[in-house]
């Protein structure tokens, strides 16, 4: 499959790989996908409790090149945004940025789910607002 240079760049140099302390109240963890489907993404955010700005994001992904690139890009995009700004990130933005082929759109959906799941987890821990549609694991 011919990938865009951006996918290849994220694949070769994935950003923000690693893990944050799951037990910290400042950290939200989203784990989406399933091994049987060939993609599992774990995306974590560390949120500043005062400003609600996402100061740190980490990911690990089992999946194809598009899945790795989508999650790597997602960590870059959420950093510096407030929690509510991060909720605005759409899978279509990821598709556009990475020029994903149609068969790989599900990778971008998974990345969007991972962001929402991480934020949902953080909200749950901190009793913030309603978790509108954002649950720990989003199925579709």
């Amino acid at each position, binding site marked *: *499959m011919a*990938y865009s240079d951006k996918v*290849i760049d994220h*694949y*070769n*140099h*994935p950003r923000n*790989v*690693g*893990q944050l302390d799951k037990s910290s109240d400042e950290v939200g963890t989203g*784990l*989406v*996908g*399933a*091994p*049987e*489907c*060939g*993609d*599992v*993404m*774990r995306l974590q955010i560390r949120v500043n409790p005062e400003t609600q700005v996402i100061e740190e994001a980490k990911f*690990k*992904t*089992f*999946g*194809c*090149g*598009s*899945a*790795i690139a989508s999650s790597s890009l997602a960590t870059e995009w959420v950093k510096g945004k407030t929690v509510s700004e991060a909720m605005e990130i759409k899978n279509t933005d990821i598709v556009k940025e990475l020029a994903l082929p149609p*068969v*790989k759109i*599900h990778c971008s959906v*998974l990345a969007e789910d991972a962001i929402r799941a991480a934020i949902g987890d953080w909200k749950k821990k901190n009793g913030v607002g309603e978790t509108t549609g954002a649950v720990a*694991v*989003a*199925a*579709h």
Partner: protein
Amino acid sequence: MSAIDTPVAVPAGVNLPIYMDNHATSPLDPRVLEAMLPYFSQKFGNAASRNHSFGWEAEQAVENAREQIAKLIGASAKEIIFTSGATESNNLAIKGIAEMYKERGNHIITQVTEHKAVLDTCKRLEKYGYRVTYLPVKADGLIDIEDLKRAMDDKTILVSIMFANNEIGVIQPVAEIGKLCHEKGIIFHTDAVQAVGKVPVDVNAMNIDVLSLTAHKIYGPKGVGALYVRRRNPRVQISAQIDGGGHERGMRSGTLNVPGIVGLGKACEIAGAEMATEAARLQAMRDHLRNKLESALDYVEINGSWEHRLPGNLNMSFVYVEGESLLMGINDVAVSSGSACTSATLEPSYVLKALGLGDDVAHSSIRFGLGRFNKEAEVDYVADKVIGIVQKLRELSPLYEMVKEGIDLSKIEWAAH
């Protein structure tokens, strides 16, 4: 984390990219090309032209190729029918037998790990009132002969079981199947595309009645194949699927692809002469590749029987790493993956699933197909490259991390995606 693609030293004499996907197709042997060349522009006659020397010359070349092919599989030249390749051979064999013997019965037996050229042909016949039994395979990829016995009934006209599998290289107990079919008076067809020229094939010793083969898997040209059709004990009849000039004993009409046929013949001659030494060399390289990968990496699995396997095949799963992302990291090496992500369907390999592999392990599989033109130094390069990429991707894999932390992945409630 450092970059995924860490450079591995390229050994002397190795040119990139490396081709290690010889189950898909193989490069043309220069000796085959040399044999073919005159038949494009100098000896261009139509083999069916019976009234001038151009035609006779072409016919002579075709008959010579028939001999070369027959010799490789222990047949006689008159039993070889030329086709456009293995897909056509399989279609002709199965549809042609189904049609010819429909008075005798409407039941066909095949197996779940066949190539789509067989499975889809059988599925089509089901629409026309044929009954098809798809035998399961054991965890090693082999069918159970007892299952085959049980599936046979008085309406069974055909058993079609492949000789060697294209993904896992597993070799079926063909001689046993043939013996059983002959005892019951059932025609035995085998798709021997991956086996012919790689391992000994003898249609008489193995009681094979109909056999499909193709040139491009044995260092011959694409677009030409053959069907062996037994002429005695029993005499197998096949109903033509293409109507026309009655070429090929009326079984397959169409002007013969003379250069292609010459190439197929030459490819068979070379394969027959060099099979023993080539198989030993490929097996040694394949074993070396396996050993190198296994000694450097944990959580690797061999897919399919190791004992009953083509010498050049290695199908392995690198668990907790997804196959397509692995292929991306070794983009200067051509191999295949059973992962769904390399296909449009998002379903992982049905062959691997038939062995009972979980989808997650199937997604992690890589097929290495070693061939005549691979060198030992290439194997070392490929092994080093794969080891490096697998290690990097596992640093990136949440599954590998969880397993290393002692988490049971089967206990996690994954959301279907």
